């Protein structure tokens, strides 16, 4: 089963307190961060809805 590594969002209300999440200031920054984290962590980035991404580990 895939493990959730972290969330990335532009809207802090999307994620609950205590979950690993990065809050981006704009949609562009969000895309950049997600792209970087995908490469750094070797994990797949999935889009749940506009402004909310999830990075999961399938190894």
């Amino acid at each position, binding site marked *: 089963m895939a493990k959730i590594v972290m969330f990335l969002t532009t809207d802090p209300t999307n994620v609950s307190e205590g979950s690993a999440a990065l809050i981006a200031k704009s949609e562009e920054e969000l895309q950049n961060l997600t*792209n970087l984290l995908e490469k750094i962590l*070797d994990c797949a980035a999935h889009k749940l809805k506009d402004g909310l991404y999830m990075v999961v580990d399938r190894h």
Partner: protein
Amino acid sequence: MITAKWLAGHHELMGVTLGTLFGFLARVVMLRSDYRQYPAYPHGKIIHLALGLIAGALGAVAVPALMSKDYTAITFLSLAAQQFREVRNMERGTLTAIDHQELVPRGATYIEGIAVVFEGRNYLSIATALLVSFAATIIGWIWGVLLGVVCMAIVLRFMKGKTIEDIAIVSFAPVEAKNASVTVGNVYIMNVGLEPDLAVIRKQAMGFLLTPVSDDAKVTLSNLGLRQAILHDLSTRLGVYRDDGEPALVPIAKLDLSTGALAVLLLPREQDKDKALKAMRDVPLLESAVRRPTKANKTKGEPNYG
């Protein structure tokens, strides 16, 4: 000097020589290196040719030994069986070890299939040697040679297994990659979050739809090992547009649950459609993936519908 007369007086020697020769030759014709590139290297080949020679010799000497009432010689063959099981373990071990380094792995089912073939071919080689040696010793060397040629033809026939073409109709299906979703035809494949990855998929991806031709084929196609073998084979023959650390760019196959059809998403380097179609049709059908539920569920006395 070796003359026809001398040969006629040495049945057993002729039997053993011809048996060993044909047993070895059978292994040589069965040792193919194709697009799978295995065994491709001189040393890999030498191992199998040497074992083929041993298999031939073991099969060939069994006949004269039995004729001289040395019945314990049959234990020789069990020794050979033990030896060839080792071959299977060796192949399995090697392939499993290098499978982690493949961009698109073969998968355990494919590896098991290859290992079984290596073992099986040695037994075919023994059987050829045994039959040829028998004919040459009992009847005459000409019959030994004739039987050897027939055995070769049978052995070559054994090599031709079934392929995907026998169980499914292969067609192309459009790949769509938008709104973070990738679909092949009507089948949802995966969620890809990033736009650059979606752009690569739109540009490089090729979609196939494998429609099963029967109920048995439906079950066979759903086997995960067979699916992995399809992905590996096509990636080997067409190249693959992916790298380590690119988890979004991965060839993948998903079932259309309502129809049983298999949708395949590939990222080939070679974009030639004809080559891709041929590559897909030629994928070997793995022995351990084949299921025949229609046969298993048939009760005695029921009419046979096919």
